[in-house]
């Protein structure tokens, strides 16, 4: 093979042009649907999940009070029930959520804090 031929097969020609490849990689998994939304929050049980940082306790106190005033029968599952979702055991805590939420009768969740 000539030098030019070797260059072409190697991805570049004698003028210095080259063909190059994508440095990325395919994403795993496709699109996933969201859960069905609620008709109303009245009478619903809302779980509060927190990473125990950035005043999430203060924010939840404010939201709980406001939501209680607005929706009759609404109740909350305290964030201490779950442990930190952003701490030492976060993978285990997050993995355990479906079972725990079912056990506690949660209808919806709030997660915090994205800071």
């Amino acid at each position: 093979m000539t030098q030019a031929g070797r260059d072409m097969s190697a991805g570049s020609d004698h003028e210095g042009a080259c063909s190059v490849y994508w440095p990325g990689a395919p994403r795993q998994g496709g699109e996933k649907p969201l859960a069905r939304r609620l008709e109303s929050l009245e009478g619903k049980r809302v779980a509060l999940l927190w990473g125990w940082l950035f005043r999430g306790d203060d924010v939840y106190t404010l939201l709980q009070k406001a939501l209680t005033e607005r929706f009759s029968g609404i109740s909350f599952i305290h964030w201490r029930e779950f442990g930190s979702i952003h701490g030492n055991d976060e993978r285990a805590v997050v993995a355990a959520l479906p079972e725990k939420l079912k056990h506690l009768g949660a209808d919806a969740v709030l997660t915090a804090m994205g800071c």
Partner: protein
Amino acid sequence: MLRASAVCEQAGIPSASLVCEGFLQQAKAVCMGLGMKLPVAHMPGHVAVQPAGVLEKNILEVTLPEVIACLTRTVDQPVNAEEAPDEPGLRDIVFRGSHDAVNEHFQQRGWSDGLPIVPPTLAKIEAFLAHTGRKPEEVLGVLLPEKRTATVWSVAVNGVMSGCRPEYMPLLLAMVEAMADPAFGVEHAGATPGGDALVILTGPIVKRLGFNFGQGVMRDGFVPNTSVGRFWRMVLRNVAGFRLHGNDKATYGNTWRVVVAENADCLQALGWPSCCTDTGFADGESTVSIANYTGGNVVAQVSGDPRRQMLPYLADAVVRQMSWQLTFSVGAGLGRLHPLVLITPILAEAFAVAGITRSDIQQYLFEHARMRAEDMERLLGDWSDLVSECNLAAMADKGTIPQDFHASDDPDRMVPLVWKPADYSIVVTGDPLRNNAYVFSPSGLRGYRVTRRIDAEGMG
């Protein structure tokens, strides 16, 4: 947080994720990786700096209505349709042009780090692949947050781009496997403290590939140390998906770090074990360790008597480098704080001559690198709010942290920074004839120390 929301949604429970204004772009990017358009309720500004009245107004007027909407209003947008354009396939040629044109193309698409890259042509990629017996399509792991599959092929492409040499391939593969290890927590690589990984090499590979382990280690200038350091961040960018103004939320970024290599000759002469033994590997093995650090400082002119002056100076230097990071000891990352201390061969020899072993140094640092309990509580509680109601005595009494943190009720008692002596990493490297040291501040869980053996089979 969004990962928790995604798990709940998949379990059929609607969620609302509370996100501060400055993190909405990151949330959007994470959602793409999760394959879900998670409903987000935003909080204006940053909650940490708002007076109580401002916080209440923002939450009630802005966040509350969005929380209600997130939980009750049907979100009918397609998940990724608007954000995710068609992407190339793994082996697709994405561009053809001159060296300069290739570089411009890659920069425009966010595929490079601002420096020129080596164009990843087939010939160059195949040269890398020739240094491993593994198939190009083999998946090494899935990298969050974009949840992309790191393959042997993608390692080769990014290795070429970073200026690595083909014979580094076994090392590059081990690095990406370490990156994909859940214990490392690559998903946190874009966390706001902006830490970046330090790669530490041990064993025969250091000399075999020509890594600098002597004077000026951590300075650019040696192809292996520099290009392999660059490769790390190139993979974070192109495969994991960390890009500034997207998934990478570093407040103040560190750049990629030039690789550190251990001085095996010195260790052998002193009869000291390699640092790879700290993570369970055999002395003398070729290994690569990664851990994130937010920064560090040199400890200049470590002088005098090893016991009365050198060790106290090192202990003092360690204390001065540990601040908010202590949350990885007694807060979010219980027992996961591993300060790193680099010492030069001449210091190691001075200790050895005085009868001080590597483990003696670890023990000394555990016993003497300490701070007042009240200061630690103020740091993690009052000042940073990293540990709510930080009370070391209560935590020790509950068994959450060791009793060393509650030897008495005296607020002036000196408490350790870590849980046990072995939590200190000691690495011998740097100028053999200079009496300096270096202390690194670790990022704990946000890039936890992981070590991998390097498969020597492919190193021709």
